[in-house]
């Protein structure tokens, strides 16, 4: 019976209502610096949620229970104060600014809480307010620009964008450099954060280096983000509801030309004159071609011309031969994202409870793209004597629908937009059925499909379900001794249903009536397909910790011993059916021929045993050690066991030698340092130490089965990549803590990289996995926080600046090899380059190398003295590196009488990017299509390549003043070696971005309703990525994008798979009951 009561009590925590007699307290809050009043200060009864905020004159009025003892005053940027009531009815308080939040705790590995002053290594914390100030629905977007050493890249736009997270740069050539994310104690992949509601997050503790994370052993080498969700605050039931609505618009297109229309010259002599004709004096170059995708026709002149060709009924369309205004931009929609939240929180001294529900519904800038994320999160806990129990549970479903590739070449939508000449009124072809010129047969473009066809008929749909739960049981038999055990479970299911409908051209089109050599005549039919995949991941963890926390006179000791068990199981099934029979039925049973199927099941387990101790002396000197031994199933028995040690120390010089701060300038000084070793098992194939004989390509042929060796030689001797990190840092405060500076330097060396080294095929294998190579990563991090020294009256201004310098350098790869393409399977220089990144000994990583034309020693382009044309050189040239050296983040907020204006800006620079979207024939970018401003820069007239030289005799170069490029249009911008090499499209990747601007106003509801129903109301305006500044040479796209996945290290390349950059703006309403 008692148990049942206890249980009921446990669940009823959230419903209890405090019934007590009350009294009213009034007071005034002023600044200790200038005596001015401070509006917006939160005043609450300690240990409850009873509270209010100060009004515009810094005054507050609050009803408190008779037995209330203490009031808590808090405000961003000011030191939180607890003030005893002592029977008073009027309490006035002076608040001081304070960045050294002494009482704050840092959550480190396994939830171990440590005081910042004890920390010998750099950490940072982003709390909920900072995270959601610009109402980002994605946790990662809310972190950008706010922490030094943290680099977050949105690698593509979209309704569910993929983000890449790195801390302190790169440590691995091929293995993932993404930080480990530990969500409520459970390690998950960084992409998992896309499924988390940012409003549920209490805070994110950033353990920047491997040192702070060493206790996580394997996988900790890239740093760790410890994400802690809300558990419910003390006080009576609080209900929060909010709505955020944001709009997303393409902020700019690449620079486009609006002078020239359809044409590519190739049809001269063979095409029907009805569809190919000439405008202007020269009939032999660059004719207008009515069905052409390339824009190398004559200059626009406004006359009416045929577009496309005659349909079977003899009809045809006429359009003015002039550029349609905003033609390509008009294709894109304004995306809308509606985010609705509700949360319930409650708690008392012995229990707490939190429940939230969120729905985020997003439509994209690409028409028909949608994403909907719906999730619930629950957390709670109960304390009973020496026992306590906590749990969290969350469920999220994310449904995404994106457009797929086209039927002909599998190209993305953006490619087909780029292949639409300027005179084409593209938005008129939305109707694929009733508009005869929007149909497969009637669309003007003989070579590329109507992009609206692919929106409607080629989709990539994904449903992702995430469940995460954890239970922590603690036992605290003595004041200084605690045992705790956390069991966590993550279940993740991803189901993809991708399909494409068949494309059936009419017999009429198949005869190529326009004389175009059209797609229909070379292939009258494209079969539809259904491509499905189901993936399931189950992670189970169990961490046991025994903690001793005791002081022995001047010596304090916190010692932890523990075990960590981790198990991950993965299942995937994939099936593909080409040749769908019944239209609109996407099931592999609806097919001709045999389906393709694949299955993968894998499991990895590890056991870790660890110990961690912090010894303090007189609260100003601290020494911390940790050690962990892992046994991991992915390696063979002999190599399975690994030890990961770390040590760090911290000394608060200002407390040790008070004389240091006995001056008005310096108010705090701490120095610290740390060293650690961590490992990462970089085996994508968890069975990689075993030789493997999968079914050979094509097998089984009916009843004939067949197997063949894989082409990678298994290596049973593989071991983890080993990262050694050393860091030094200092923290100092000036002018009564108004300015706080934190500075770190670090160096990491990662050796024994896992390299699937190429070997001679004559061995019978083409690759062998080996441990070799070393990558060194150095950096500086500076974090400066300040409140202005100036007296701004009632305006409270806080600012912070963070700066990181990162440099990754390849020290070695393996004997006899000084360069690796990244990724290994990349084709870097061929017609369909997929990457331009390399690991090159002696160079920064990733090294960007591109194809180029021949140049003189000064870098001038060498041209032929007759044709004026450059020629391609065999060697690829190094142009820089893909990761930024410099990242500068600036955050600021102003508070005035309930108004809060915050902004975050970020600069990145030092790196380069290859904009394949710009290029000529191989790769097929905007110069290939001829819609680029770049390709029209000389008005399609003869010109001298700027800065070019002529080789007059071997090794002697003179400036070219005479040799004109005679090929004025297509032949130069599509086919010349200039346009067919990559260097012309490589630019600095530097940018400035205004990441966030948010204006909120806390409505003084306590005046309106006496604070009885609505405790707080806030309205706000938000904007993200409102401004992007790039160097003038980058006329193409956002250099933050990248054409690889978040786990790939191949950065420095974008193409038409990345849609144009967007800006977001919207409004929010938040109510607290």
């Amino acid at each position, binding site marked *: 019976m008692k148990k049942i009561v206890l249980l009921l009590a446990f669940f009823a925590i959230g419903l209890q209502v405090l019934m007590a007699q009350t009294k009213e307290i009034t007071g005034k809050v002023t600044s200790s610096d200038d005596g001015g009043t401070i509006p917006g200060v939160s005043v609450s009864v300690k240990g409850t949620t009873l509270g209010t905020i100060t009004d515009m004159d810094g005054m507050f009025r609050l009803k408190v229970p008779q037995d209330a003892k203490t009031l808590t005053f808090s405000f961003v940027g000011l030191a939180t104060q607890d003030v005893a009531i002592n029977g008073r009815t009027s309490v006035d308080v002076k608040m001081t600014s304070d960045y050294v939040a002494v009482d704050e705790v840092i959550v480190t590995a396994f939830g171990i809480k440590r005081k910042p002053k004890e920390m010998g290594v750099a950490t940072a914390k982003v709390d909920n307010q900072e995270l959601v100030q610009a109402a980002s629905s994605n946790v990662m977007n809310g972190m950008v620009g706010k922490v030094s050493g943290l680099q977050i890249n949105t690698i593509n736009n979209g309704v569910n964008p993929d983000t890449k997270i790195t801390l302190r740069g790169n440590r691995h050539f091929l293995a993932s450099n993404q930080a480990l994310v530990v969500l409520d104690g459970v390690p998950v992949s960084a992409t998992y954060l896309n499924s988390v509601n940012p409003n549920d997050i209490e805070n994110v503790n950033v353990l920047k280096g491997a040192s702070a994370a060493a206790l996580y052993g394997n996988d900790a080498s890239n740093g760790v983000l410890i994400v802690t969700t809300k558990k419910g605050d003390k006080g009576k039931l609080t209900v929060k509801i909010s709505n955020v609505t944001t709009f997303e618009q393409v902020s700019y297109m690449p620079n486009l030309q609006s002078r020239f229309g359809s044409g590519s010259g190739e049809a001269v002599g063979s095409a029907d004159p009805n569809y190919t004709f000439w405008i202007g004096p020269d009939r032999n170059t660059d004719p207008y071609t009515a069905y052409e995708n390339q824009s190398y026709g004559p200059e626009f002149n406004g006359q009416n011309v045929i577009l496309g060709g005659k349909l079977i009924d003899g009809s045809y369309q006429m359009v003015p031969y002039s550029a349609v205004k905003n033609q390509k931009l008009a294709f894109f929609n304004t995306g809308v994202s509606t985010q609705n939240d509700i949360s319930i929180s409650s708690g008392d001294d012995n229990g707490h409870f939190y429940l939230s529900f969120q729905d985020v519904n997003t439509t994209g800038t690409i028409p028909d793209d949608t994403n909907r994320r719906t999730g619930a999160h629950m957390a709670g806990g109960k304390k009973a004597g020496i026992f306590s129990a906590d749990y969290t549970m969350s469920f999220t479903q994310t449904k995404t629908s994106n457009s797929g590739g086209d039927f002909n070449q599998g190209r993305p939508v953006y490619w087909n937009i780029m292949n639409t000449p300027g005179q084409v009124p593209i938005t008129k072809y939305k109707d694929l059925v009733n508009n005869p010129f929007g149909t497969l047969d009637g669309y003007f473009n003989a070579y590329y499909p109507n992009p609206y066809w692919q929106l409607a008929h080629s989709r990539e749909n994904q449903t992702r379900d995430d469940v995460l739960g954890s239970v922590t049981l603690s036992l605290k038999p003595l004041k200084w001794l605690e045992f705790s055990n956390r069991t966590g479970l993550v279940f993740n299911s991803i189901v993809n249903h991708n399909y494409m409908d068949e494309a059936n051209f009419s017999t009429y089109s198949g005869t190529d009536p326009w004389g175009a050599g059209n797609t229909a005549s070379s292939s009258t039919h494209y079969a539809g397909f259904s491509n499905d995949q189901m993936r399931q991941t189950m992670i189970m963890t169990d961490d046991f910790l025994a903690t001793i926390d005791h002081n022995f006179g001047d010596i304090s000791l916190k010692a932890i011993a523990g075990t960590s068990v981790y198990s991950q199981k993965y299942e995937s099934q994939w099936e593909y059916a080409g040749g769908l029979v019944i239209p609109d039925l996407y099931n592999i049973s609806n097919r001709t021929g045999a389906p393709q199927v694949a299955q993968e099941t894998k499991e990895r387990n590890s056991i870790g045993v660890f110990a961690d101790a912090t010894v303090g002396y007189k609260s100003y000197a601290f020494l911390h050690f940790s050690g962990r031994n892992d046994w991991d199933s992915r390696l063979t028995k002999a190599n399975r066991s690994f030890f990961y040690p770390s040590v760090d120390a911290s000394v608060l010089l200002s407390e040790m030698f008070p004389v240091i701060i006995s001056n008005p300038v310096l108010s705090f000084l701490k120095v610290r340092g740390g060293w650690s070793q961590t490992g990462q098992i970089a085996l994508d194939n968890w069975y990689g130490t075993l030789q493997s004989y999968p079914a050979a390509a094509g097998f089984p042929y009916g009843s004939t089965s067949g197997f063949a060796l894989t082409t990678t030689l298994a290596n049973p001797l593989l071991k983890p990549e080993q990262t050694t990190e050393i860091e030094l840092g200092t923290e100092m405060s000036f002018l009564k803590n108004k300015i706080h500076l934190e500075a770190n330097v670090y160096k990491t060396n990662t050796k024994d990289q896992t390299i699937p080294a190429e070997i001679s095929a004559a061995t*019978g294998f083409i690759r062998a996995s080996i441990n070799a190579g070393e990558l060194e990563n150095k950096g500086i991090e500076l974090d400066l926080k300040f409140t202005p020294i100036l007296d701004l009256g009632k305006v409270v201004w806080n600012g912070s600046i963070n700066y990181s310098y990162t440099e990754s350098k390849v020290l070695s790869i393996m004997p006899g090899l000084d360069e690796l393409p990244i990724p290994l399977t990349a084709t870097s220089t061929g017609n369909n380059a997929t990457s331009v990144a390399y690991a090159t000994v002696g160079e920064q990583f990733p090294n960007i190398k591109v194809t180029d034309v021949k140049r003189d020693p000064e870098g001038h382009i060498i041209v032929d003295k007759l044709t004026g044309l450059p020629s391609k050189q065999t060697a690829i040239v190094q142009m820089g590196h893909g990761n930024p050296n410099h990242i500068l983040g600036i955050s600021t907020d102003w508070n005035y009488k309930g108004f809060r204006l915050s902004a975050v800006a970020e600069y990145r620079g030092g790196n380069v990017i290859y904009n394949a979207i710009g290029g000529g024939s191989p790769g097929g970018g905007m110069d290939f299509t001829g819609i680029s401003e770049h390709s029209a820069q000389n008005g399609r007239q003869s010109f001298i390549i700027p800065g070019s030289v002529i080789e007059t005799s071997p090794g002697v170069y003179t400036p070219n003043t005479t040799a004109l490029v005679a090929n004025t249009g297509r032949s130069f911008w599509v086919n010349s070696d200039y346009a067919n090499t990559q260097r012309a499209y490589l630019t600095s990747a530097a940018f400035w971005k205004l990441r966030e601007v948010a204006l909120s106003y806390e409505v003084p509801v306590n005046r309106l309703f006496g604070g009885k129903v609505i405790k707080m109301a806030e309205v706000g305006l938000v904007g993200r990525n409102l401004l992007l500044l790039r160097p003038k040479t980058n006329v193409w796209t956002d250099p933050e994008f990248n054409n690889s996945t978040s786990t790939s290290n191949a950065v420095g390349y974008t193409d038409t798979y990345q849609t144009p950059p967007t800006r977001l703006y919207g409004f929010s309403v938040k109510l607290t009951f």
Partner: protein
Amino acid sequence: MNKKILTLLLSLVLLGSSCTKFLGVDEVNPNTASSVPPKLLLPAALTNVVKVMDNPRNFEFVYLWYGLWSISNGYSQPSALMQYRLLNSNYQNSFSNLYLYGENFTVIENSATDPKDAGYKAIAMIMKAYIMHNLVDCWGNVPYSEAFKATDGVLKPKYDDQKAIYEDCILKLDAAIKLIQELPADANEIGAANDLVFSGNMGLWAKFANTIKLRMLVHQSGMTDRGAYIKSALATTSSVGYLGAGEGALVSPPFLENDTQMNPFYEVFYKGDGTGQSDAVAYYFAGKDAVDFMADNADPRLGRFFQPYSGTSYAGNYLGQDVVTHPPLLAKDCSKLGFLKGDAGYLIGTPTEAAPLLTDFESLFVQAEAFERGYITGDGKALYNSAVTQSFIHMGLAAADASTYVAQNTNAVNYDLANDKIGLILTQKWLALDGVAPVEIWTDYRRSGYPHNLHFSEQTDKANDTPPVRLLYPQREISVNNDNVVAVGTINAFTSKIFWQNR
């Protein structure tokens, strides 16, 4: 007390053993086997080799350089091919793949330790000889004695002398034939699902081995002082005989009309969904030398190798015609490769037909030449006529059509009228092997100069008057095994001849 200690110890042991199990999950791969018996390796190994040898993309240079095919008058002309400019990166996948699949035969050879599995061992040895001599015919000195030894730690195999490789391969073929001749009575049966070539008929495998041997020895016929060696080598296995009419070594899994499962030649031209075609259909066109040779001799195979561009008119291009001075025919005026998709008896053939390692007509042509050279005994005219007949049958024609053809009153086809019988045989072989055995076409030309009067590239800026005599070592090898490549010496695509080339 003792009981407690016992319980504690027992539970520790249990914990220890469950730990071993927990951490041992990756010791057995649930997705793929970590070893496979020979009978399951053989089908894929055979299919993979024929996928290399029969894929026209891998050896398009032979068809294009030697007058059989040309390129349409499109906008993407393979200028390097037309200029005879080879790069180290050209065709390097064939080199890699032949070794990769050779490794599978090595595994079969090494794992067939049971005497009852000697048949598998023999097949593996025969196929390795087949692979190695094709590698030598294209690249000369290649890794051999240290090849296929990765598991022994040899990751940079040395390059062996090509003549020594040839000689050792011939010994291996002899040894394989001996294994077959001495198969135990209770040998494990090799079924049709495992032996995709001869369905377990080991007698035919012996004949195939002997035919490969004959082919390799005939390759050396142009060398001086090699006659005695050739004759004595042939004598040791003369009783085995050679592949005859209807006994071609063709791989048939069987192929199916699905993407990735089709006949490797057909697969380059058409898709598996029953509708689409690839751009190869519009890319390769008829070679004028081949069209003219067939037209001149009333050869009914003309309509089988090529499509009429209109009615019954056929036309082809020479390679590398200058667009301005001597423009190649427009697509509409030129013959494509024959014929409509999926028709048996045409060059492109069907998606499901067996793919040749060595056809019966090639065997017969080789025997005919060996007879003319005095290496073997027999009836030269019968061998020649049978070879032509089998080529006609392969191209979907009747034996009677072949009889009419060879009876024509011209020394270009008629054995009795031909003074240069080796020229007759090799010219007919050149045509017959179109789309079937490109490496052999190339080898025959390099060692003999037949067929005479072929038109070489008309490109004015070509690197050499005649086509290269070998392929260049793969760029991959230069990257990962350079010391051994360098040790071979300087390689020139036009002068570094294969050892059997003596002209």
